[in-house]
């Protein structure tokens, strides 16, 4: 049933695109703040790079979810799964948790990371604390990814 497959693919796309967009915006915010610090003191590049990269992980989670869905559908080798329209919708619904949590958490994590860049500027010794603060925002993206993985796995399409 080609429509089923199409809807399932839309699920994979939603996961990758929403999370990717979130990461783009989040990394942008953090990178702008980082550029300001590096302009003053290029030696701090290593520390601010870490903070800038943090909101990038959501994009990877979305990518990961898309790959897992593609794999379940048999697109990465093996036989193509026979997906009914209902199953297609199920896959799409399963992709929503990772997509939605990632887009918001990446944008907001970008803001926290940008604020944490200030810590690097003023108190470089305490920059580890800034990383942890930013990571707390990421928790919900990780949970979203977990839910998506468990849901896709639970659908048992590949089996």
């Amino acid at each position: 049933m080609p429509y089923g497959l199409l809807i399932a693919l839309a699920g994979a796309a939603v996961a990758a695109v929403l999370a990717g967009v979130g990461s783009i915006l989040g990394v942008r915010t953090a990178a702008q703040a980082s550029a300001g610090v590096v302009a003053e003191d290029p030696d701090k590049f290593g520390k601010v790079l870490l903070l800038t990269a943090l909101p990038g992980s959501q994009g990877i989670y979305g990518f990961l979810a898309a790959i897992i869905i593609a794999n379940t559908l048999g697109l990465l080798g093996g036989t193509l799964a026979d997906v009914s329209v209902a199953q297609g919708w199920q896959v799409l619904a399963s992709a929503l948790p990772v997509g939605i949590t990632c887009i918001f958490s990446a944008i907001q994590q970008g803001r926290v990371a940008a604020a944490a860049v200030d810590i690097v500027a003023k108190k470089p010794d305490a920059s580890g604390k800034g990383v942890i603060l930013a990571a707390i925002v990421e928790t919900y993206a990780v949970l979203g990814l977990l839910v998506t993985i468990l849901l896709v796995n639970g659908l048992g399409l590949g089996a």
Partner: protein
Amino acid sequence: MIAPMVKVQIAVPRRDQDTLLRWLQDREVLHLTELAASTGSATDQVVTPFNVELAHVQFALEFIARIRIELHEQPRRSWRNIFAGRPAVDLEALEAVLARLNVPTQVQTIREMNDRLTDLVAAKRDAADTLAQLQPWRELTLHGSEMEGTAAVRHELVCVSVAELELFRTAVAAARTSAMEEIGRVMTKKNGTVYIQTVVHRSESALLDAAFAQTQAEAVKLPLPPDRTVTEHAAALEHTVQRLETEYHQLLEAARAALAMEQDLQFAYDALLHRQERRQAGRAGKVLPFSFLVEGWLPEERREHIIAAVTEAFPSAAIETAPAKAGEDPPVLLRNSRLVTPFEAVTNIFGKPRYTEIDPTPAMSLFFLAAFSMALTDAGYGAVMMVALWAAGRFFRLKREMRKMVRLLFYAGAATVVAGALTGGWFGISLETLPAGPIRDALLTLKLIDPVSSPMSLLLVAFALGIIQLLAAWVVRGYAHARAGDWLAMVFDDGAWITMVVLVLLWQASSRGLLLSAYTQLLAYAALANAGILVATQGRSYKNPLLKLGGGALSLYGLVSFLSDTLSYSRLLALGLATGVIALVVNLLGGMVAVVPYVGWILAATVLVVGHVFNLGINALGAFIHSGRLQFVEFFPKFLEGGGVPYRPLGRVGKYVDNPAEFD
């Protein structure tokens, strides 16, 4: 553990003040405390002679850095020093350089070079500006002296936009005696400028003024000497620019000699910086008519050694020590066994515990490793980490703090090898696809859980880790309560909660027939009884009996917090799966490019190396951060308040030079 501290007072004759402070600074042992009514005149605090001198040396160093860039002379750094590039020199050697170097003379020499270079640059810029201004007027054949017109004739040079040229021409033509000649034209994309000379009889001067008023045309005065035409002057200026350029480069070459002074100046800078630190430290001490007194904290284990050393170096010194009194807040230094020390790097990110609290490092270390390894779950990556970090520790010069981190990550790599082997993660390769043989059999035997096909089992393992660590937090808190002699809190706040959670878990397991299925009811009653004890005791801090009961009942909400804390450990599964699946994708991509004729294997090798290194980097970072977070948010707050003052002995914070003591 948290190192016990003793308070030390050292008094020396006043003349030994700086020698004592220098001695302390070089050894980095004494965490100074502010002595009441410390002296130091007000003028002392604003500008010290060191401030001025520091600014001068800083200027010289900035000049050298600029020259270095212009001469393309970047300092070479050996690969051994990638992570710790500064030279390590002791304080005495720095002072020796400062004494040998005549700072004012050196700075003066550099200042003169700088002034001459700046002047040359300014002169070059002036000449270039004038040249640019003359450029459109090259065709003008008049001398500078002829620009003013005559008694009867007014002469003007005019810039007007192409768009307004006709308007201006018509307006000027209103004067019968006018004449106009276009000298040049510079076109841009949208518009252009026309350069014109015009003459008019002075009796009709007002008409020319009207033409200027009607348009945006501007009269121009050229910077031209009276005896030269534009072409002549431009040629002279070009010659000047060339001469200045040559002069600049000659001067730059001469300045190359200054590069050799760089290290000496850097040493001098740091020596001055350390003098300033000592002056500030001196202010924390007390200057008495004949003696100088400092007070500070010292780890108790070093007391005998330091007292002996001070007495030897300063025979006339008087030393007194006293243990920390109640109400005092000594600084916190973590002291652990060789195996646990690297984990202090994790604790330090959170901050120091209070002096009276427990050092969480030993209790946290194994949980951190377990969480990290679960979040990475690839034995191949773990092995790569171990090799890379062993090499880093072996071949690079690393500061003590950096070395701690390297060793910590080495342990984390080792733990990841174990976790990876148990979950069958080897660079994302599916073990079933390996050629049959003893290796494959061995790896398959080691593999207990397949995270991709049965994520639920791994999720349970993550929860189990969470439950064990959260129970351990209560055990640690109980230990802290017992140490403080608060037995009531240990039994009812810590012990009762542990039994509560264990009973609830057993009851749940039993009701599902997993274990002790014959005792379900008994366990349920036991759990209820335990809950009763909690309700009865948890509100005991309230005076009002109703509040006592209410507070106790409310405390059962702790079970919900326990549950949500446990759920937080599910991140380990998600992170672990992320590593495995991305590794799988990298291998897949490698396989796709491998079929390209001739260069396929090169492409595949590149994809595999870059992909796996990227995956390892990004996921090791994630594993570190999230394992850290589990300690900071879920584990520490159960028994730790934090906010202790870190032990920061009077020492050296150099800008260009490291203390050799930081490398042992």
